[in-house]
């Protein structure tokens, strides 16, 4: 195999199926981060409509308080919960919590840090995000 054939570029790097749940968490963390930043900027703009008075505020609410707006907000809730829970996992990992003890690298060279504790953390983040999305939708659509 030549060097060129071995290069898959961003597509290869983004492939979530090859490197396990840790790579999925890596991508979800970045995508949710970018999504939340975009939402945050939009939210700051959205709330600035209060300066246009009651008419301006109500006009903007008509745009956001719709079925589509509620679904969008449910996705934001999911991103927020995943980003938070997975972020706490990453912080603990950086602090040395749950990454296992240093040991001699032996075949098949499984990284000690990619252990069941952190896998449980990632699955928990996904599960909690799903629960929070359902709760959010129940609150928004329940009225």
């Amino acid at each position, binding site marked *: 195999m030549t060097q060129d054939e071995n290069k898959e570029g961003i597509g290869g790097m983004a492939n979530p199926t090859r490197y396990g749940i840790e790579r999925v968490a890596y991508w979800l963390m970045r995508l949710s*981060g*970018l999504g939340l930043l975009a939402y945050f900027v939009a939210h700051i703009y959205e*709330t600035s409509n209060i*300066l246009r008075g009651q008419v301006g*505020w109500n006009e903007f609410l008509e745009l956001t308080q719709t079925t589509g707006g509620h679904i969008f907000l449910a996705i934001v809730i999911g991103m927020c919960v995943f980003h938070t829970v997975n972020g706490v996992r990453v912080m603990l990992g950086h602090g040395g919590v749950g990454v296992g003890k240093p040991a001699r690298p032996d075949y098949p060279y499984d990284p000690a840090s990619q252990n069941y504790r952190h896998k449980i953390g990632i699955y928990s983040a996904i599960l909690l995000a799903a629960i929070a999305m359902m709760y959010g939708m129940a*609150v928004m659509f329940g009225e």
Partner: protein
Amino acid sequence: MRESTIMKIHYGTALAAVALVAVHILMRLTQGFAESLEYENVLANYKFIPYAAMLELILILLSVHGFNGLRVILLELKQGRLYEKAVSYGCLAAMFGLIAYGSRTIIMTNMGMV
């Protein structure tokens, strides 16, 4: 600033923001969701100084955390002296711009300039 210091700020702003955003969301649940977004209720929120101060704090914490996160992502994609400087200063400028714009809303509404 050293990257290790920046990461400490990144984690610190994240933890503080989680606590304050939780309060911000709980305020929406003290009454019905739609009711809490009515003009009079939102205006009353902004005029309550402790809550307005909390909003300002959330604005600063999330701006710092968000734009530093964007900077980290962009620096992972590509490296180079000029590129890294452009990304860092660009994110810093965007952060100050967003804080200024958000603060304008909080201060003007709090002072009744609506």
